[in-house]
């Protein structure tokens, strides 16, 4: 049997590491000794291992408390509905209590990650909206909201939900889904494909084009934060100008731009500034013999 040189404790026969400080035993084998019958048996097979509960005490307590309060609310609403003899319909409040509780319970049950929590909350919001809308017996105003939620999911959640090697496909689905959203919304609101094709999608294409320049710059160069912010403002300006331009075209007007002319001037100024900024830096680096 050996002793730990650091802790001074005697180690059981055959032990080569101190369990207190993990110091390796540097002693001849006859000092370390042969392993005897261990104090603790070896690892049991997975099937024999008792399964531990998933939730700790406080989390379990909060979950049970929420469920208890939900139960009280549901029972009270049901009794009230019976007492008021049909003048009060409890389904929407009961549904709201259940869904409201579900918002809290999900946050306590699942291991919180961006994708999981946002997906669950998007689903619960869709259910809540549908439930309230169905109060009239048919779906009406909730459809555009659900479409917006689907768009949100496809653009802001799906790319992160996919494995890394499929993330590009996620981005493409997100980009295409915005165009589809315009068409679907147009169809829903006007009953025909109208402004989505003539105004929204061309404007969206201009914004995408402008942003793609920024993405290329980020990919191939190292733009400063100011450059990035100004480029995003520039893309927004192009979007506004393009919206006005395509709107005038769809109206059959001869004017090039109407109210967005001043925005176009700002956009051109920004473009010149950004171009000069990049060019001057390159020229300066060239004369300073710095590789860019």
């Amino acid at each position, binding site marked *: *049997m050996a002793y730990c040189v650091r*802790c*001074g*404790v*005697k*180690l*059981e026969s*055959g*032990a*080569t*590491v*101190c*369990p*207190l*400080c*993990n110091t390796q035993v540097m002693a001849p084998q006859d000092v370390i000794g042969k*392993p005897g*019958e*261990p*104090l*603790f*048996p*070896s*690892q*049991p097979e997975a099937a*024999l*291992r*008792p*399964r*531990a*509960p*998933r*939730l*700790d*005490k*406080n*989390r*379990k*307590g*909060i*979950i*049970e*408390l929420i469920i*208890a309060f939900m*139960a009280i609310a549901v029972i009270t609403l049901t009794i009230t509905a019976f007492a008021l003899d049909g003048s009060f319909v409890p389904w929407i409040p009961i549904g709201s209590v259940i869904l409201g509780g579900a918002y809290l319970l999900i946050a306590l049950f699942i291991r919180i990650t961006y994708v999981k929590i946002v997906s669950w909350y998007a689903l619960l919001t869709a259910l809540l909206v549908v439930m309230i809308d169905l109060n009239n017996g048919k779906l009406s105003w909730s459809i555009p909201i659900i479409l917006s939620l689907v768009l949100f999911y496809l653009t802001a959640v799906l790319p992160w939900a996919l494995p890394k090697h499929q993330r590009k496909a996620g981005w493409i689905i997100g980009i295409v889904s915005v165009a589809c959203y315009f068409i679907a919304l147009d169809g829903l609101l006007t009953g025909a494909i109208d402004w989505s094709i003539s105004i929204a999608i061309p404007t969206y294409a201009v914004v995408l084009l402008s942003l793609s320049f920024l993405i290329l710059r980020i990919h191939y160069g190292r733009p400063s934060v100011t450059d990035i912010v100004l480029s995003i403002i520039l893309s927004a300006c192009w979007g506004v100008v393009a919206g006005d331009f395509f709107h005038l075209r769809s109206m059959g007007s001869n004017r090039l731009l109407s109210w967005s002319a001043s925005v176009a001037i700002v956009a051109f100024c920004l473009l010149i500034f950004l171009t000069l900024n990049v060019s001057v830096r390159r020229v300066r680096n060239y004369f300073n013999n710095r590789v860019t």
Partner: protein
Amino acid sequence: MSNALHRDELLPLDNSAIIYPPTVARFNTHTFRLSMDLTIPVYPHRLLTALEHIIERFPYFSVSLHRGFYWYYFLPHTAPLKVYPETPYPCAYMHRKKGAHGYLFKVQYTEHRIAIEIFHALTDGTGGLIFLKSLVAEYLRLSGYQVAPDDQIFLPHSLPHPEEKEDSFERFYKPLKSVFGSETAAFHMKADDELTDDIQVISARIAIADLKRLSTSHQVTITEYLVAELIDALQRIQEKEIPALRRRSPIRISVPVNIRKVFGSQSLRNFTLFIVVGIDVRLGHYDFHEILNQVMHQMRSEVNAKTLSRQVARNVAGRRHPVIRYAPLVFKNPFMKLLSDHYGDAIYSSTISNIGNVHLPDGMKEVVQRLDFYLSPSKTNKVSWAAIGTNGYLSLNCTSIFAHKTDFEQEFLTALVAKGIAVEVSTNRNGTER
């Protein structure tokens, strides 16, 4: 005549057990393990026969746990008994229905060991020890050994004393006013390590004579000495973890006390109270003699029938309060979970339970090599200590839910080594080569 409880005889949980079923959760298993290492081999079929014989004598352990409308309760359980191979991680979670075929204890074995793992709602360490001693005595009898009579060994066909199944808290309850006080939160070690469901153990084996010599030189008992060393170790850890004095918290240790002798009870269900002793480090650094002095005075002033009556009153009055009594269990459960730390685990930094030197009768002491006792830690107090002694040696087992961190164990055991005590350690921690 059969000792078994009547088929429909409902047995309420005792007053200190009612907190255990609702607060079982991840890292809070509320179980303990007692084991005896024998010089003779342990055969599972013979052990099962011994268990079947002895369970007749302990009808209040042959029960299953059920949820009622107001409280949990026990009902007699008659499912076939089983013995299980011992697992390396003690004090594991025991599902009340599937854990041990509906029983609340699990008899385990290895080649030379008989162990029993018990859910704390059933009994405390003393009750568990009597059950284990009776089981091992029966196993030895079946193996051809003669075991001399002993107060803590019950024979299979003897009649249980009516007091054994009583809830002694109810008998010794004296109504007192304002028994509910709360302490400030105590220091808890930083949870800067991964937590694990597999209870990690560092087992220290110490000669009782060495400890006795050391504690006698300070005119204190072994338990008082160990408590003082634990507080000192925690003080060093806190000084490292929290350098600013004003941000430190008091260090307190919870010491379960078997109050059967104090009140004169023969109950084999829970009849233990917790004495919380400690130091307020916000007042400055305490040297070891100051700690020892504090511990000695606090412990001795607490262990008497009058002071303990206050805690008995607190346990019973809580249960008898009309709001608590008539609230449905579904509402009581979450509050018990959320408030139990405030009145329990949060006010102390760790626990040490010392069953003491166990007397083994002739015929048994020749066969039993060592005794071990393990106490489950909790999410708040991640490290617990349990001690039991026999044949001149004390097994001091530290159970922890820290996957790697052993600062507390190291500080405590190296302090004993520094004072000339020989400490032999074993572990179930992975990564420690054997």
